């Protein structure tokens, strides 16, 4: 099932990170399953423990299923100074989950991440590949409500 992805990359070790990225992106739940790791291990001919070493080193990979939307709230000093704590509280309340957890409907996973480089518009959040800046609690409500409706 991963053949299509493998066919784009030569079976060399340096392609590991990109293959993992692509598998994770193609997986609706944005994670790397045991089967996926096994398949990559066979394709690249490197032990699974090495692959797990890489997966757990980089923060963007997950071995647990995640939501359709991955919310990455910037936890760097700028966003903190401009009130990211309130934004985090609001998100936790609205979604009913803690950091690293996924909502029951499988729609959202709440994560913290390093600087997104949009510090002029702090606090910021990246939801999948889209960045939202100058966040306020009202704006969070608007964005999350909108994403919920899109699903329906």
């Amino acid at each position: 099932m991963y053949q299509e992805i493998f066919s784009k990359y030569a079976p060399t070790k340096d392609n590991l990170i990109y293959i993992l990225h692509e598998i994770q992106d193609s997986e609706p739940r944005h994670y790397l399953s045991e089967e996926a790791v096994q398949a990559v291990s066979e394709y690249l001919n490197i032990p699974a423990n090495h692959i797990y070493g890489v997966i757990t080193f980089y923060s963007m990979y997950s071995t647990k299923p995640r939501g359709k939307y991955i919310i990455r709230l910037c936890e760097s000093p700028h966003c903190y100074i401009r009130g990211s704590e309130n934004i985090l509280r609001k998100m936790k309340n609205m979604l009913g989950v803690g950091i690293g957890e996924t909502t029951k409907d499988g729609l959202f996973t709440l994560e913290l991440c390093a600087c997104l480089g949009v510090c002029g518009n702090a606090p910021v959040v990246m939801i999948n590949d889209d960045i939202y800046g100058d966040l306020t609690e009202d704006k969070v409500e608007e964005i999350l409500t909108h994403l919920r409706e899109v699903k329906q």
Partner: protein
Amino acid sequence: MSLKRIDLLICCGSGCVSAGALKIKEKISQTLEEKGLANEINIIETGCMGPCDLGPVMIVYPEGVFYQKVTVNDVPELVEEHFIKGRPVKRLMLKDEDKRVYTTKKEIPFYQKQVKVALTNCGYIDPDSLDEYIALGGYEALGNILTSMSPSEVIDIVQKSGLRGRGGGGFPTGMKWKLAAASKSDQKYIICNGDEGDPGAFMDRSLLEGDPHRVLEGMMIAAYAIGASNGFFYIRAEYPLAIKRIRHAIEQAKEAGLLGKNIFGSNFDFETEVRTGAGAFVCGEETALIHSIEGLRGHPSPKPPYPSDQGLWGKPTVVNNVETLANLPSIFTKGADWFASMGTEASKGTKVFALTGDVKNTGLVEVPMGITLREMIYEVGGGIVGDRDFKAVQLGGPSGGCLTKEHLDVPIDYESLKAKGAMMGSGGVIIMNDSKCMVNVAKFFLEFTVEESCGKCPPCRIGLKQMLTIMERITSGNGVEGDIEELIRLGETIKQLSLCGLGQTAPNPVLSTIRYFREEYEAHIKNKSCATCVCPDLMHFLIDRDKCTGCSLCARKCPVQCISGSREEKYTINQLKCTKCGNCKEVCAFKAVKSIPGMHPELRQAREQEKLQLNQE
């Protein structure tokens, strides 16, 4: 192709996009379509224009009118008034406190001290257009070099220009190249370091997004100089737009014959591709970055051997920062002397800084090296937000240090900053007003480096954690005498013994705040008091009896029910139960709740008794 009478440049840097620039662009296109003007007006998506706090921003040529904070609702008026009737909309122009209106970009004080070299085209051209880059002199430098210069001549010019690495270390670029050029090998590599992890720095992202061909041209110049035929852009996965833009630029260059075999008819061959990170700060360190490209965990390795001898897959490799590469085309079109005429004795040229924090104009600025902090904060940055005073500035992110009021006239260059305990770093500048607690700020940076330490070497992995434990103790009111000395001892040891730049610089925020704000640390430890009331354990709330009307709102909103009283008696806070959430202060309509520095005496006494009891047991 029809002639267009207006060029509308819309800033589509990540800042403006996050503020809604794409929606505005869509609305403008739609409105122009409806009015039948689509053929007359050229809409161009540019990279970052700089003033992120004014976003979304746009410029209308030929007049060069600068519009700021545009919303979707402003579009009909903008089209009707400006594009149809030719009357610029004053309402959307920038105004200062004295109501002065700035019509064009040039007039705005934010731009006046700036000199754009790396950012020359950023915010001025369509980053997805190779033609626009070439029209402004793009690939001219590369063409000249490949047809008329030897690699050693190229290195000589870069050495003469005095260009130093813009990623933080400030190592002379020409020297780095010379070492790699001298290494004998069948294969060499050039890597562009776009793993901009420093919180508060976003110049590399803006350059990659706003002018990708310039970075690519710079990489090719470097490759020719060192004899590399292969290159990699290593860009963090958090920057999807930058990855997309640079990939597109590479495709275009391939189609145009600017990449591949016999470039410009010379015998220089070059191929390059994009590699991405996956969320690890340490991968900005060159040896860790190299391991990440190889498909390994991003652990740094000891130097020597330096990458210029043994880098990627054991071959000689040069790792240059995005901004360093972006300076190169200008050095070759305008000359090394021109570049060296800017800046100071040892720090030549310009540097891009990301201004953020409590300053009026936040955003991306490029200024000549040697400009003073005062000029940068007050003239370019427009001064401190609100009515507060300047307190400190953190330069170089979590690896840098802070400087204070007394350093406002220090020139910004590699050596001067280092001498004061700060560093240039990648150019993140966080300006803080007097409401910030320096102990807390230092603790925050330390939390970041503890989190991002790769764990390979013990001084960084264990030492930083130990420093953080002490910092947490201090900010929670449990600091003891000797803590400051212990922090200094640990910090100095970690700096000396750590394997890579992360650990060697991570203690800087703590050490520099101790150096300049020691009295704040002492107040936290000895008086159990945080003067700015930022550290919750070292402050308390009090209700001013004269102002309290006895409305009971605070008592009803208190999540731990620690406020009691009546209309007659007024309300008081039970200090032993209060969690310092601040709700009461927020809801009080009469401003009767005050933040008072210092742990409340009752609480302090209770805590000491608790400790005594524990000791006896």
